[in-house]
């Protein structure tokens, strides 16, 4: 209830006790303002902080070809080129670009008390086709045995300076060169044109448990999983969005 104040009566002497009571009541009211003390819609955009710490977006529309071979679920090797062995960034060599968002460091907190931060990464990659150049029809082009493999990497550091790209195998997704339909022929010669979605949410406590404190950015890396040498994977349009939220883990 809003404060119900009794005025000093006309002609009464205002004793020290009366005055003290009045201001004590005011103090109590101000220290515990109820809903009806405040006008509706009185907290505006300018008054309150954003729940969003950082945000970033990157899109790539240039098609690129990759032959770097996938060598293991937990492997962290980074290929020296898209024709090497290990992970390679999603993005064209020329002009050099990558599906990567760089932003101001997100502080996940020091000591034993992580900041209430969550970090969301969302990517969509169009896998155009997986093929063996020069092979005849129905041999290996878009063979279901070949897969594009993708995963998130976060750029992390313990001190805000010494950054490392960290793999997250739990975000690893793989997709075959097959188009749905099945029937009797899983091998087909049409481009697979698959949209590969990656999503993940990271919590500050997890970042801390992995020995880091700051998140500097995110990117998507890829590899080609195949038994055939020379298999090419073509990627086309891709995008990556990230944002951090002031939101603690509750579960």
């Amino acid at each position, binding site marked *: 209830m809003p404060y119900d104040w009794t005025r000093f009566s006309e002609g009464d002497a205002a004793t020290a006790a009366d005055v003290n009571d009045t201001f004590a009541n005011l103090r109590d009211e101000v220290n515990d303002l109820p809903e009806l003390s405040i006008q509706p819609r*009185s907290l505006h955009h300018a008054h309150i902080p954003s729940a969003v710490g950082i945000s970033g977006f990157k899109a790539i529309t240039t098609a690129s070809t990759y032959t770097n071979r996938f060598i293991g*679920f937990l492997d962290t090797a980074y290929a020296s080129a898209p024709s090497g062995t290990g992970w390679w960034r999603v993005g064209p060599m020329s002009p050099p670009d990558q599906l990567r968002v760089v932003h101001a460091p997100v502080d996940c907190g020091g000591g034993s008390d992580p900041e209430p931060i969550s970090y969301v990464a969302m990517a969509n990659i169009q896998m155009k086709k997986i093929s063996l150049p020069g092979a005849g029809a129905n041999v290996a082009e878009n063979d279901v045995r070949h897969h594009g493999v993708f995963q998130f990497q976060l750029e992390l550091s313990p001190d805000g300076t010494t950054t490392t790209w960290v793999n997250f195998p*739990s975000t690893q997704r793989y997709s075959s060169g097959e188009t749905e339909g099945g029937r009797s022929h899983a091998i087909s010669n049409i481009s697979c044109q698959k949209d590969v979605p990656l*999503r993940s949410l990271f919590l500050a406590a997890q970042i801390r448990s992995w020995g880091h404190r700051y998140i500097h950015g995110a990117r998507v890396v890829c590899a080609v999983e195949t038994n055939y040498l020379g298999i090419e994977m073509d990627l086309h349009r891709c995008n990556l969005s990230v944002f951090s939220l002031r*939101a603690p883990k509750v579960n």
Partner: protein
Amino acid sequence: MPIVIPKKGFTADTPIDVNDMNENVEVFVQEIQGSLGEHNWAANAFNSENLEDGAIIRAYEARESVNWYTGLASKLERDSSGFVPGGGMPADGHKVSTRYEWETITDMSIVFTAGNSILWITFSCQIDFSSTENSTASGTAVVTYGTGKDLPGLQVGIFIDGELVSETVTGAMDRSNDTRGEGHHFRRDPTVIDCVVPIAPGQHVVSARARMARHTDADKSYDSDTDFYAVFNRQLYFLEMR
């Protein structure tokens, strides 16, 4: 206008008039009797330190990591003899039963308590499968083993308090005109589904579930040791937005 200025000034060595006292107090009382508003707070008066953790948004997540790779292929890949070179189901992979019924994917269930809020729920997973059915390419001798050409497809969906959010289900849920009309059958399929749903105050359970869709031949059954779908790497997360 909420800029409060005491109306009366008191002078030294002069008795205080109660009416003056009343007027001075009254301006403050009027403010806190429902007039406190946007002008009473300074711009940026509330910084992130003023906000209690979770005051606006809360985040929940569960994830599972599955080593799906043998060094040559998926651990569910089959060779010409039907043998699984990778040894079959990897640890923490979830094998979906062949009973055509919804089942909670292992560890993909979160219990929480909330007030009136909106949930943005996302489920991301890798779908794989095991099959003894092979495929032969048209006009050639090439055979691909274990392609599951007659597997009926898989569906995943988001459930809240045991109720399916049907719009999140993968596939058309209609097998009237396609062998796999109900579910998806890709050989290795990365999938994401999400939804935004209002919830009432109280305790809730958000889960991700899966089921093998029915074949057009309703009597067809599959051997759950050899012909089944599986969910590997996965994460269920949601934001509770107030």
